[in-house]
């Protein structure tokens, strides 16, 4: 497909990129996009399971959320150039920095997810544990969605162009991951809601991904090409297969539920790594920076010419 594509003409400085490639390691940051989403949506489902008499599902999701958010924190600190200064993240609260807002969100969410899981596991302070679960569920929605703003609020062409779609791709992907965890770990008798979550999450993720890949102009190419394209095609296959498996067989066979759950988890992780790679690819080739900006300038220019023509005509009409 890419062979037949018309290559836009543009000038560059010895073919060098205009932008710097993100300094972020895929394993840390794409990994965090996955585990953050998994944790956040798991907390929402855990709260629902807790109040509808599904104790095994609630417990596995609470433990999963705690494990995922612990892995997230480790990945985020590991990715810093100066990990010993991670606490500087809480030095200021800056609404203009999604990373600052995210740090405070995690500072609130992490302890709640921890309290919820530990109370469930030990039976200590059950009422406080249930309250913490509700808090973790509410903040969990923020944890699952804010990461889209984190990467969209950059000069990275693919990520910034996808800013309208990314939040929905990410919450859909978070829902399928958490549903996958539920299907993998809970007894079949309690998994009705997570099977529905798997289908709904997959539908949102696939629809939003499709809109993203076709609604982002030239940078949208990076969602189809190379490593990112392969990861995202594999993601869609896993997510779709997992959702169908969950819906059709997930209620009958424990094995089918577990396999579907694994497919959903894999699909969510592949989505995050694919989007991460697309962003990287879009910084490496200067055409994704230069060509859309040139087109924008040409539009502004023709609009300005149109305006001056109209103004000129109006002046002419006024003179007569």
């Amino acid at each position, binding site marked *: 497909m890419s062979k037949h594509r018309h290559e836009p003409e543009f*000038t560059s*400085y*010895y073919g*060098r*990129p*205009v932008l*710097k490639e993100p*300094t*972020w390691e895929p394993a840390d940051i794409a990994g965090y996009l996955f585990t953050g989403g998994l944790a*956040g*949506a798991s907390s*929402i*489902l855990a709260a629902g399971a807790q109040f*509808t008499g599904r104790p095994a599902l609630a417990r596995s999701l609470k433990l999963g959320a705690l494990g995922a958010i612990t892995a997230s924190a480790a990945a985020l600190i590991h*990715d*810093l*150039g*100066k990990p010993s*200064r*991670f606490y*500087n*993240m809480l*030095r*200021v609260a800056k609404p*203009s*920095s*999604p*990373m*600052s807002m995210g*740090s405070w969100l995690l500072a609130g969410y992490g302890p709640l997810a921890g309290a919820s899981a530990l109370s469930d596991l030990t039976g200590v302070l059950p009422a406080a544990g249930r309250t913490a679960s509700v808090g973790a569920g*509410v903040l969990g*929605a*923020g944890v*699952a*969605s*804010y990461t*889209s*703003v984190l990467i969209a*609020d*950059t*000069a*990275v062409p693919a990520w910034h162009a996808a*800013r309208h779609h990314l*939040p*929905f791709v990410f*919450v859909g992907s*978070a*829902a399928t991951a958490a549903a996958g965890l539920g299907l993998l770990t809970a007894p079949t*008798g309690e998994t*009705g*809601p997570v099977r*529905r*979550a798997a289908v*709904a999450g997959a539908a*949102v993720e696939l629809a939003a991904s499709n809109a993203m890949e076709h609604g982002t102009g030239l940078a949208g190419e990076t969602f189809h090409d190379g490593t990112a394209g392969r990861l995202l095609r594999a993601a869609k296959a896993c997510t779709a297969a997992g959702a169908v498996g969950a819906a059709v067989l997930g*209620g*009958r066979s424990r094995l089918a539920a577990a396999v579907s759950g694994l497919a959903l988890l894999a699909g969510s992780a592949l989505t995050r790594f694919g989007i991460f790679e697309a962003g990287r690819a879009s910084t490496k080739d*200067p055409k994704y920076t*230069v060509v859309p900006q040139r087109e924008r*300038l040409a539009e502004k220019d023709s609009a300005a010419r149109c305006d001056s023509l109209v103004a000129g005509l109006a002046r002419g009409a006024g003179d007569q």
Partner: protein
Amino acid sequence: MPRMGFFTDTSVCIGCKACEVACKEWNAIPSDGALDLTGESFDNTSELGANSWRHVAFIEKSVPSQDASAPDGVRWLMASDVCKHCTHAACLDVCPTGALFRTEFDTVVVQQDVCNGCGYCVSACPYGVIDQRKDDGRVFKCTMCYDRIGVGQEPACAKACPTKSIQFGELDDLRARAQERVDALHEQGLADARLYGDSPDDGVGGTGAFFLLMDEPETYGLPPDPVVCSRDLPQMWRQAAIAAGTLLAGLAATFLGRRGQRGE
């Protein structure tokens, strides 16, 4: 305190790289390792980065001769690039620790004792200026010689420039001077001369370091119409809030189904 800035007039740059050397020396910037010969004209610095706060670009462009029997000519452009010290600086907006700040001169500087190397500014900069020093972990870029200008000196690069291609001063004065210069070049018939970053109406609100270029910005590796990413931030937060609400409501709704359905 008036806003201070750089006006880099590339029409008089002779590619001597005195700015690169003076910057490295004054700011004690480490080497990037052994000299790497790129084969890209006289440019072996290649780009701005954590260890290159001034970068002189060399562009050799073949100009077809009017006379078929004569050989084609070469037009040689040289330009010293630097951090733009944007009015709306994405690096500063996204920095989660407050390490990046705006000085009393309206320049943008990293506090090296605060930076924790998260790298967010690197992905936010629409010019690809700021970068991480890999062996150190923190990010570095031009400070417009904050230490020198604080005591009334001009930045090292401007001081070293032998042709006044790099001019330092109050931004308003520099803008007026640049306009006179570009008008003069147009009168000489150099229609390609244009200012870059001088307009407060552009996507970054104008830059504290602006340029007179002799060709399109992308020829020099500069983005033709950069926009600060955080301009769209309110809209992005709104979209993320809607998505979070959808997730919360959608997952809650999955528990509304009657118990005892198939498999339960």
